[in-house]
């Protein structure tokens, strides 16, 4: 597969406030590098992530979306990440149906102590998305003039 | 009421007493056991290997026949019960086995464990009812202290067999009470009698049987009763107590079988 050298993907990372956002902070504190393509949106819990947000990102030109939450069993709200996990499983199947490559969405559990894991995950995810190339864009026909 | 019945090889030869008195008693209690046409030997030991397909098929054939007749399948011999019940569990739970067995036997309607497998004792307990049975007893075995010998195959593994509490079973004791006898509880009642190892290693099998019988005797048993022909054989070879099939006791209590214990 040909790798497009000039392609810089747009990647949205949803991070739960209690574990993964703090994990991302820690990778910053430890000066662990990961690509600037990754932009983080803070949400209170992974269960706040409405799958609609991911579809919206793909409509607006995101090439990859990653959800990070507390490890199963460690959720600040006890069960939030279990809900997130189930919802994402359904979304994956929908994205398959829509023809968006499976690798473009990912769920990772990153604790507040796992700065290194956060950076490694983002490096790996960016590499994957770069390899996949630009995403085919979903169209929001509601906003289109017919 | 008529139930499909799987007698098994031994009940046609060495264990005719188990079979005959079982059928006659059940008839007297209002239930006809109708032998499955063209049943085949169950194989006597359950193949524990996941990839043993052919050796489990005769059990599946019997199960399918019962399903097609629309009645539960009643067994009497512990070994047959064990094999058929576990084959039924496997076909319901193990997808590979189910698809391969169905591919091999290619029945009109694929089989996936619909038949109900009942041991004779379960029919006595759940269909006839021990209270009802005790009312029909003509010659109660009053005062006879009998040790119920369960052995292994009816009880274990309990997850599949789901027959009774594997460590503290009560069905045979309840049966003995229903026919007026006094059950003797002893710990070795669910320990092995020596099984088929009796063929190669008679001494060992006899020591096992002796341990069972000695424990029962020490707890006050005058005799033992069992549902398994091989257990009966081993206990007779190595044990110190008289051992009879439970159907013989039943027939005697119901006034069908003459003679003293």
């Amino acid at each position, binding site marked *: 597969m040909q790798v497009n050298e000039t392609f810089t993907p747009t990647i949205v990372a949803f991070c739960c406030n209690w574990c993964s956002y703090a994990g991302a902070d820690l990778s910053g504190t430890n000066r662990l590098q990961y690509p600037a393509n990754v932009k*983080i949106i803070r949400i209170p819990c992974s269960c706040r992530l409405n799958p*609609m*947000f991911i579809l919206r990102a793909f409509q607006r030109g995101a090439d990859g979306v990653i959800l990070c939450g507390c490890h199963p069993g460690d959720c600040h709200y006890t069960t939030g990440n279990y809900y997130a996990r189930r919802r994402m499983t359904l979304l994956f199947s929908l994205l398959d149906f829509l023809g968006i490559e499976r690798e473009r969405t990912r769920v990772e559990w990153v604790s507040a102590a796992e700065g290194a894991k956060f950076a490694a995950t983002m490096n790996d995810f960016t590499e994957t998305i770069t390899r996949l190339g630009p995403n085919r864009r979903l169209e929001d026909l509601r906003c289109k003039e017919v | 009421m008529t139930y499909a019945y799987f007698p098994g090889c031994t009940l046609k030869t060495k264990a005719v007493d188990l079979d005959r008195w079982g059928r006659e008693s059940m008839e007297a209690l209002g239930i006809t056991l109708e032998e499955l046409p063209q049943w085949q030997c169950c194989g006597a030991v359950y193949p524990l290997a996941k990839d043993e397909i052919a050796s489990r098929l005769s059990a599946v054939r019997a199960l399918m026949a019962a399903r097609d007749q629309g009645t539960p399948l009643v067994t009497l011999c512990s070994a047959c019960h064990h094999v058929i019940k576990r084959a039924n569990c496997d076909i319901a739970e193990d997808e590979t086995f189910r698809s391969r067995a169905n591919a091999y036997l290619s029945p009109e309607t694929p089989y996936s464990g619909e038949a109900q497998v009942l041991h004779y004792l379960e029919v006595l307990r759940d269909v006839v009812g021990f209270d009802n049975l005790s009312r029909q007893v003509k010659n109660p075995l009053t005062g006879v202290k009998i040790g119920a010998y369960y052995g292994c195959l009816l009880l274990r593994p309990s997850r599949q067999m789901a027959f009774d509490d594997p460590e503290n079973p009560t069905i045979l004791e309840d049966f003995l009470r229903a026919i007026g006898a006094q059950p003797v509880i*002893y710990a070795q009642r669910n*320990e092995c009698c020596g099984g088929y190892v009796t063929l190669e290693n008679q001494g060992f099998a006899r020591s096992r049987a002796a341990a069972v019988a000695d424990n029962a005797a020490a*707890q006050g048993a005058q005799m033992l009763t069992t549902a398994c022909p091989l257990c009966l054989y081993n206990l007779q070879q190595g044990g110190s107590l008289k051992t009879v099939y439970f159907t013989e006791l039943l027939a005697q209590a119901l006034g069908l079988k003459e003679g003293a214990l």
Partner: protein
Amino acid sequence: MQRIGVFVCWCGSNIAATVDVEKVARVLSQEPGVVYSTDYQYMCSQAGQEMIQEAIREHRLTGVVICSCSPRMHEATFRKTVEKAGLNPYLLEIANIREHCSWIHKDKLTATEKAVILGRAAIAKVQLNAPLTAGKSPVTKRALVIGGGIAGIQTALDIAEAGFPVDIVEKKPTIGGKMTQIDKTFPTLDCAACILTPKMVDAAQNENIDILSYAQVEKIQGFVGNFTVTIRKKARYVDENKCTGCGLCTEKCPQKKIPNEFNLGLDNRRAIYIPFAQAVPKVATIDPNHCAMLQKGKCGVCAKVCTAGAIDYKQQDQLITREYGAIVAATGFEPISMDKFDEFAYSQSPDVVTSLEFERLMNAAGPTGGTLLRPSDGTHPHTLVFVQCVGSRCDGGEKGKSYCSKICCMYTAKHAMLTREKYPDTEVYVFYIDVRTPGKSFDEFYRRAVEEYGVHYIKGMVGKVTPQDGKLKVQASDLLGGRQLHIDADMVILAAAIEPDKSARPLATMLTASMDTNDFFTEAHPKLRPVESPTAGVFLSGACQGPKDIPETVAQASAAAAKVIGLLVKDSLTCNPCTAQPDELMCNGCSSCEKVCPYGAITYADKPFRGPNRTTRIRRVAQVNPAVCQGCGACTVACPSGAMDLLGFSNKQIMAEVDAICR
């Protein structure tokens, strides 16, 4: 029209070294709605904060974006800053351009570009921020402790010491719990009663503590600071205020053959009884299932002998309703039933006992007066076999528990040691899978049992116990010795796994507190909030949260008390304003949100809505209690009609961020 101010912090060189802060401020000033944009060395400094306040006033800002370090660092600081300048504190957003940008990138161009995008996302979000007001709710200054074992007693004493009234609800006729049945405690071997009973008396005499014994919680309503609890005080047919605890009735009662729960059925009690000599409250209780007067209307002996006139056969259950600010669950544990483990012949021989039964057999106040005798024939046992891990560490299924019960290794070492100490003529075997002794002086204790007291510790398990000829024939494995052992034992003692008390599950439902699959209460955070339930205002004390020994239980009990006190000293509670809020016009009352809410914050109300042609329709719509909602947002996604949204993290706000990033 929004008037947004953007403040880009240099953080000395932390940000400014890799991000062109001036450029960021310049580019962001072009964003729609931005009326002011600047950069400064240290925004969090006094001067920086004053600069922000000045700008808010001067430019009549309606929203503030600060591009700086992580909001986890200074969000609270800057909220106060803007609030002092008269802006609602929730009209502030922070773009994290330090941890998430300058610190992880080296190329200045890239980092600057990213900082701009992060700033844009924050601006997009702040456009949609609404002023939020943190609500206040009052706090009832009284605590309820459910369960009167050592955990409940300790928690109640600590709360009472701090000056707050506290009620203990105990289902049994006396407080004290499991510890009253224990003989000696490891690793010090001091007598359990000697250290527990003074605490029971303290609790009874403390003015701030009200003990409701022989009572259970029936209904819990409300939320943190404002619980309303209904308690059923069961009829004990004895007037607690009149009974002096003299015990005459318990001697004269003709019903003598009732298994004594306190001694685990190893001896009998009467139909009217006081569980044990040091019971608190020390009053008699009539067991209605066995009392001839209550069953058949004939007898009345206790009433005749009672000089205090305390017997009241007509007493009824009493329902008490009280208000509490905090609730502590201290429901404790039970050993599991040995029904499913009859390979050890527990049901076949009285000489096979559980460890708790063994405690009673060793206890001076127990059925044998402290002399160890075989229950079957009252003779002195010579060979004792202890089996560990009975029902612990099992793989699923109904049989046994998956967890380690934690206390068994130590109490078994204690039993073995005490037996050898009191009766040097005994042989004591302990079959173990692992010996787990993590605790202060614990391993030393176990080693003493082996080295000084000569207890035979054997790595292996017991596979079968056969009662025969007055002995228990034990068949076991000795894995290190590579042999199968056959021991003729006189007694077999089973270290039964422990499980949460049966009352915990219905209590958790009433509290909307979460439980794990084993019915232990779940803590708010397994490491950092170990004594709080995720449900605000509910705290956990003792073994109801997980298996624990006495010192751990007491430590947790005091910790729970500290948390309760921290809540009760407040006059009112500030609620997190970022809570869920339903759009009642869109809500169809389907209950999806209620089902996913881990806090029970969502209820439903029937409300009138205008229908067509001046009609009114009553519809069932969701109501969120902002004092209970913790703002996780699970409900917002579960809502099929999109009626539920989360303040501060609304669908529109998050979508705006997505749009800004993907632009």
